[in-house]
């Protein structure tokens, strides 16, 4: 892993990977939209509202996946002092917050016609709202100190403590009575969902993941540049002080 600790090496890797993840994102989401909106049937109970699933469920997956990425990066930063891990965690947080927000809003837009309510304070919905606040807290904390390393350290501890929420979200539909339906894709005995609906769901899921990788690399690159700018400014200030 320390092979990628070197920012110059990371920048070279990112320059190679990004065109492919960006291209894959466009193709996968275009295909996902076609199968989701045009080539898949309406649900026999839910009618066309089932199409909300193709943006709601992948964004929920991403909310959890991005947070897990952030927690792993934070652990790596705290334990091994990996110089890029803090930048990865900081760069991931706004993307995860965006996906979680999409999940909450599309969930409300699906809940109103199907459950008769925009919102309910039940286990799945509330734990997802907490995830959103954890992201916001991370984003605020990481910039709350004059010394970026102190901010990164505080934010890493928040990310790790908040990770307890991830399994709670995943299993909330099994542990508590909730309006939200239980898992139907990742479950024992295979997915309980028709292939015509599973296809757009997975296409969007993979497309959202490649989108995340692309935007994450853009943001990490910007963070590396910010660190360089800070270093140059610092030497300038020192140079003036001595001279």
């Amino acid at each position, binding site marked *: 892993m320390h092979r990628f600790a070197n920012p110059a090496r990371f920048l070279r890797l990112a*320059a190679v990977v990004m065109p492919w993840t960006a291209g894959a994102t466009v193709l996968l989401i275009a295909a996902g939209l076609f199968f989701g909106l045009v080539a898949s049937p309406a649900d026999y109970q839910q009618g066309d509202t089932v199409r*909300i699933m193709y943006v709601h469920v992948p964004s929920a997956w991403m909310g959890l996946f991005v947070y897990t990425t952030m927690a792993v990066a934070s652990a790596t930063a705290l334990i091994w002092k990996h110089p890029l891990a803090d930048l990865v965690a900081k760069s991931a947080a706004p993307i995860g917050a*965006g996906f979680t927000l*999409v999940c909450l*809003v599309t969930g409300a*837009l*699906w809940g109103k016609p199907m459950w008769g309510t925009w919102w309910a304070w039940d286990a799945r919905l509330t734990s997802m709202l907490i995830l959103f606040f954890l992201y916001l807290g991370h984003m605020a904390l990481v910039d709350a100190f004059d010394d970026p390393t102190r901010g990164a350290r505080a934010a890493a501890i928040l990310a790790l403590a908040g990770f307890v929420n991830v399994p709670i979200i995943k299993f909330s539909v099994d542990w508590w009575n909730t309006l939200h339906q239980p898992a139907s894709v990742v479950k024992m005995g295979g997915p309980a969902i028709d292939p015509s609906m599973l296809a757009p769901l997975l296409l969007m899921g993979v497309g959202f993941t490649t989108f995340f990788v692309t935007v994450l690399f853009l*943001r990490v*690159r910007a963070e590396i*540049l910010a660190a360089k700018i800070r270093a140059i400014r610092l030497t300038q200030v020192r140079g003036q002080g001595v001279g």
Partner: protein
Amino acid sequence: MASFFEMGGYAGYVWPAYAVTAVVMGALLVASLRTLRNREAELRVLQQARPERPRRRQTPAAGNAEAAGDA
């Protein structure tokens, strides 16, 4: 075609869901790209103002990666 946009009477829920998704993902991409471009410009100005760079041999490799990313 009209029936496609009606979404079986649920147009008011389905289309806003897709619109919110597109707006949030689009905003993330645009904001990230804009920050990156601004930092690249800022770094260029700083490096031009101070041509003799007391940096080790890392700098040319990083410079190449940035140049490749610009294309």
